């Protein structure tokens, strides 16, 4: 590490897709400003620094750590603890670290079901010996270890204390730069804040809103929405009403409903709860049976529709965990080859 007075920046990824890493580079030439102000001491994607280099650092030596991804394995939990210890400011970067995102949707399953799908059931999988990853494997040269895969994906702040959150899947380049600028200038919001706007996507959306009353919910492939009216009023499940602004309403502007990647707006404690509250309010019926029909026909997957990005960070965090197959009668009791 150089002996100058530059700050130290670390970036890490846990259970994520890698999109957040690319998003960091989407700030374009400003990455040079970042390099001028910070030594990037740890960034597995781009920099050849090892975990043992981080382990050797003093506590709090890293000025800011941008951590993306949820916590799915023991190794990721260890890295979260290590980077928390070594960093002055730990930022949950992107939707996965903030609220679980798409990897967190697997919380409707458990480890056994995920392994069954991944290592046995997918059509392109050939696994004649029914091999599944095991945490320990004895080899002639000694024991080999793999991280333990958890039943439940956790968000970063369910694992270690987090200073700031940067929402988005991935965060928009302008918001990333805003956050880095805040760190550089020392002009940071109070700890625990989400760095971003405190309005909703609807605020940034140019579509015309009138009274929201629907008799039927549509899926995106069922209708072609008109170009000026609010998508929700046309019966599409647009999540803009509960979602934090910051993206510039990119999706609704091109006729695609907001899917909620920027997470809950300020003051919302449970994203899906607010979506359910709002969507139920706009159903145009007072007849219990008709209401039930409208909901069941229009929303085939409530968890996926309301918690697409936030299941792990929601109040319930996951679906009911049953030892013999998570409550699905089809799978319960079914022997899983290779599983313990």
């Amino acid at each position, binding site marked *: 590490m150089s002996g100058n007075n530059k700050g130290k920046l670390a970036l890490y990824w846990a259970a994520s897709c890698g999109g957040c890493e690319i998003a960091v580079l989407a700030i374009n030439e400003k990455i040079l400003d970042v390099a001028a102000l910070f030594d990037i001491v740890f960034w597995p994607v781009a920099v050849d620094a090892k*975990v*043992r280099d981080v*382990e*050797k650092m003093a506590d709090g030596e890293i000025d800011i750590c941008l951590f993306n991804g949820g916590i799915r394995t*023991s*190794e990721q*939990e*260890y890295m979260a603890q290590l980077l928390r210890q070594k960093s002055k400011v730990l930022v949950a970067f992107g939707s996965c670290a903030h609220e679980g995102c798409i990897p967190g949707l697997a919380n*409707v399953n458990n480890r056994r079901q995920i392994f069954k799908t991944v290592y046995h059931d997918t059509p392109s999988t050939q696994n004649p010996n029914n091999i599944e990853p095991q*945490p320990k494997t004895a080899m002639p040269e000694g024991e080999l*270890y793999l*991280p*333990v895969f*958890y*039943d*439940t994906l956790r968000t970063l702040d369910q694992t270690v204390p987090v200073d700031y959150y940067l929402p988005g899947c991935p965060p928009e380049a302008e918001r990333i730069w805003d956050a880095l600028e805040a760190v550089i200038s020392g002009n940071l919001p109070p700890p625990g804040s989400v760095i971003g706007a405190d309005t909703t996507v609807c605020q940034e959306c140019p579509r015309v809103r009138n009274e929201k009353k629907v008799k039927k919910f549509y899926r995106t492939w069922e209708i072609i929405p008109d170009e000026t009216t609010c998508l929700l009023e046309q019966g599409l499940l647009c999540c803009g009403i509960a979602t934090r602004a910051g993206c510039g309403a990119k999706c609704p502007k091109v006729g695609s409903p907001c899917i909620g990647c920027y997470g809950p707006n300020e003051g*919302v*404690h*449970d994203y*899906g*709860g*607010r979506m*359910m*509250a709002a*969507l*139920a*309010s706009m*159903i145009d*019926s*007072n007849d*219990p049976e008709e*209401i*039930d029909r409208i*909901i*069941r026909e229009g*929303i085939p*997957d*409530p*968890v996926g529709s*309301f918690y697409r990005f936030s299941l792990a960070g*929601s*109040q*319930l*965090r*996951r*679906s*009911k*965990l*049953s030892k013999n197959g*998570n*409550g699905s009668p089809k799978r319960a009791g079914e022997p899983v080859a290779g599983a313990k």
Partner: protein
Amino acid sequence: MPDPKQPNEKQFNPRIVAFMCNWCSYTASDLAGTARIKYSPYVRIIRVMCSGRVDPTLALKAFALGADGVMIAGCHPGDCHYIDQNYKTIRRVTMLRYFLEQMGIEGDRLRLVWASAAEGQHLAESIDQFAADVRQMGPLNWSSNWEENGQRAQALEEIVREHAEAMEVLA
């Protein structure tokens, strides 16, 4: 035969959170009190201005914090103090129950009851019935779903040990 309304350590005593509207159901529970009508002691009543004000977030929070059942009680349809907000309650409860079922929580753990200000007896009976039904379903104990099995702590210890050994080799 023990009184089912008395707490009994030998059986499962459910924890029930009940949101009751200020104008009808909470007044009904008051009436039950002044009329000395006994009802299940397992219910914790929270007064809200209207059943339509009960955001699904509140019911989810109750389940996440350890409630075994959630009751929402309001004015009869057509009687709402705020014109038609209890119809909104019907829609929200329907939506929430549909979601709960996908999460593996029995829809019956969320109950909607209509009780006017004069129906203290009816409300007390509804509470008793719900308490009995939740007892039948058993404990929910939601936070137990978040626990990882014993391998987790051991695996973390092993990583620390392994890395420490690797550092010694390198040094």
